[in-house]
């Protein structure tokens, strides 16, 4: 018997589970595979797929109950968690900033990790791509960026990681290689050589794909900044983005360290409901089994998730994208919405926070 069972292991599921555990609840996560966090950018956008402000978010999703105090508290809680885990985020959801994407477009985001730098309006920019990583091409990125920002001076450079591979390499492969100091030295030497040849001495930003290390991101970032002598940013694009993998890894590690029980590769097939309460859920992983909890959190996302979305169940909290079909205009949620929605469920389950109009469910 757990206090809470969270179904789904994406951003929403993990945040909800970790915060509940920190409030002293016994928590289990039941999940079929990883969440869509693996395919995400790791950036906390306000309106994914669109440029918008927090006011637009509230209007769009009709969540007026999320007042300024609640938003501030949720975001602070997220920032504190990520700082403790060693992957701090910065930014202000009241003032979204422009960042560059892996296709050379500019988009707005709310919170972003330290490997990301807001994109300047003018100045000298260099874009670095790797011969081995086909998902990110500096010439292509430059072309798109130049159209949008004609006033920028843009250099594009293509360097090699110097490692042979028996498979098509992705950004994560590059991120892991760049955690090795010999690979970094090899890459930095090529970049410096290019800059020397072009007589570039002052750059406002050097753009990389999302490859600046995984758990060792700080070492990789510091060395690149120091050696190149300019601010560095990752441009998030085709998954897997190292920005997202770090977030996933840090959250997952925290979840397990805190003693949250993981029921992996497990599907929820049905639930026993009595008097509008879920008594237990029936699960299967080769063998059939059942699990009991006082409260249940459904964090399965919407596009490929879903499940027990019955609003009339009193001990079921439906969070994240599963909450309401209105939140998936482009089939994407995540980001700020996930943080706020998770925090709200945690507040309600732990009885620590109440703000009138409630989300679905509500038994303490």
């Amino acid at each position, binding site marked *: 018997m757990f206090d809470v069972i969270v179904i789904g292991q994406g951003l929403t599921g993990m945040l909800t589970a970790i915060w509940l555990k920190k409030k002293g609840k016994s928590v289990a996560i039941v999940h079929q595979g990883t969440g869509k966090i693996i*395919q995400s950018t790791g950036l906390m956008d306000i309106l994914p797929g669109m440029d918008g402000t927090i006011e637009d978010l509230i209007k769009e999703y009709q969540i007026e109950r999320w007042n300024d105090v609640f938003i501030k508290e949720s975001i602070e809680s997220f920032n504190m968690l990520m700082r403790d885990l060693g992957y701090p985020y910065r930014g202000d959801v009241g003032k979204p900033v422009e960042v560059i994407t892996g296709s050379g477009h500019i988009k707005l985001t709310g919170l972003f990790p330290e490997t990301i730098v807001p994109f300047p309006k003018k100045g000298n920019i260099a874009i670095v791509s790797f011969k081995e990583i086909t998902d990110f091409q500096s010439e292509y990125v430059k072309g798109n960026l130049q159209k949008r920002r004609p006033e920028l001076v843009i250099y594009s450079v293509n360097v090699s990681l110097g490692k042979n591979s028996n498979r098509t390499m992705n950004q994560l492969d590059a991120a892991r290689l760049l955690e090795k100091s010999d690979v970094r030295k090899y890459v930095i030497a090529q970049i410096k050589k290019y800059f020397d040849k072009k007589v570039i001495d002052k750059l406002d930003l050097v753009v990389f794909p999302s490859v600046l290390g995984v758990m060792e991101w700080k070492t990789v970032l510091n060395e690149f900044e120091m050696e190149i002598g300019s601010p560095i940013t990752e441009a998030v694009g085709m998954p897997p983005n190292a920005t997202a993998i770090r977030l996933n890894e840090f959250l*997952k590690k925290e979840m397990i360290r805190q*003693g949250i*029980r993981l029921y992996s590769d497990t599907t929820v097939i049905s639930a026993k409901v009595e008097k509008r309460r879920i008594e237990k859920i029936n699960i299967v992983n080769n*063998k*059939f089994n059942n699990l009991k909890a006082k409260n249940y959190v459904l964090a399965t996302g919407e596009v490929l998730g879903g499940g027990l979305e019955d609003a009339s169940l009193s001990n079921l909290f439906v969070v994240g994208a599963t909450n309401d079909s209105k939140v998936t205009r482009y089939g994407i949620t995540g980001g700020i919405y996930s943080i706020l929605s998770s925090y709200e469920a945690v507040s309600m389950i732990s009885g620590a926070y109440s703000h009138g109009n409630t989300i679905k469910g509500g038994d303490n």
Partner: protein
Amino acid sequence: MLKLIESPFDRCLKCNACVVSCPVSNYSLDFGGPKHLGPELKRLIENQDLLDDPRVELCAICGNCDISCPEQVHVTDLIVQAKAIHSELSGTKFRDKLLSNPELIGKITSNLAPITNIAMKAKPIRKAIEKVMGIHSERQFPKYEFNNFNRRYKKKTANSERKVAYFVGCYATYNAPEIGDAFVEVMAYNNIEVAKPDQHCCGIPMLANGQFEQAKKNAKFNVQSLLKYVSEGYDIVATCSSCTLALKKEYVSVLGIDGAEELAKHVYDSSEYLRMLDEEGVLNKNLSPLNDNAGYYAPCHMKAQGIGNPAMDILELIPGYEIKDLAAGCCGQCGTFGFKEENFTLSLDIGKSMHDAVEELQPEYTVTECGMCKNQINQMTDQVVKHPIEVLAESYKKSK
């Protein structure tokens, strides 16, 4: 000719979740990766000639791809099939045939135990073995016991109300019979008698080395032998996480053995079984305090069973006992994988997260179910490693 059973691969969306979660892909660019060698290779050869891709040799069948897949594709099953095809078309090295048969090694080596244990620590001998056999000279070997579990325990039937048929597995039989002893003791404290059915190696090392037919033979024998016990009301319990996974999953999904599905319903990991007794309110909780501070290392094949963390659930019942999950990835030993000369460095690279987690938490000792994970923890750290059932037996014994 190989007869392979259908395993759904068309649900694969190429989302890369498996690639990101694969410990071998994360540390080696030589490996083709689970997505390419699993569902994509299967798509390619469906209704065509078999294709031999030697890169499958690097798959350690840890199962992290299965755990990560949001679409329920059994990636490991597909790669195990690709390994079988590779062996069929290209043959198998003598070393790999030998490594895939821990039961045979166990029988011979435990008979000569005092000598073999000393020999496996002698550098010149290890250098020679590396040269002739391709087993890395710096790889630690588990010790072998002359007084193995087969010599110690011969009981074939149980007469208690609740009865357990114990699937011992090669490791507890030949290398660590103290695990078997501890299991029998813990069951006795719960008034459960333990029978040891006739059994052979579960077959996981065979699947890892492309020895499909041999694995099938063993699986058939085990299913028949264990089902007899099931029909007489026994529960099947195992102390090794890989054996448990084989009995619960691989016999059904990869090998398609008749009766395997029925058997799987009655198979439990030892801690999972005790947790069930606790839930039913019949677990003997006369446990005396242990003021230890331990780390728990979850084997990949434990995670793959989707049963939460039964070892910690049970050990947390011991008064004063502190245990924390190391939350580390794959250890890198991966059964036979880490013994092979060409994988040695890669194996240690993969094990780094386990090593770092031990350094970070500094437990007094580490608890894990898997004998091979223990081997790697011993190789890479100075930790004493215990099976959860040994810790529990200690607590029961003190309370007598």
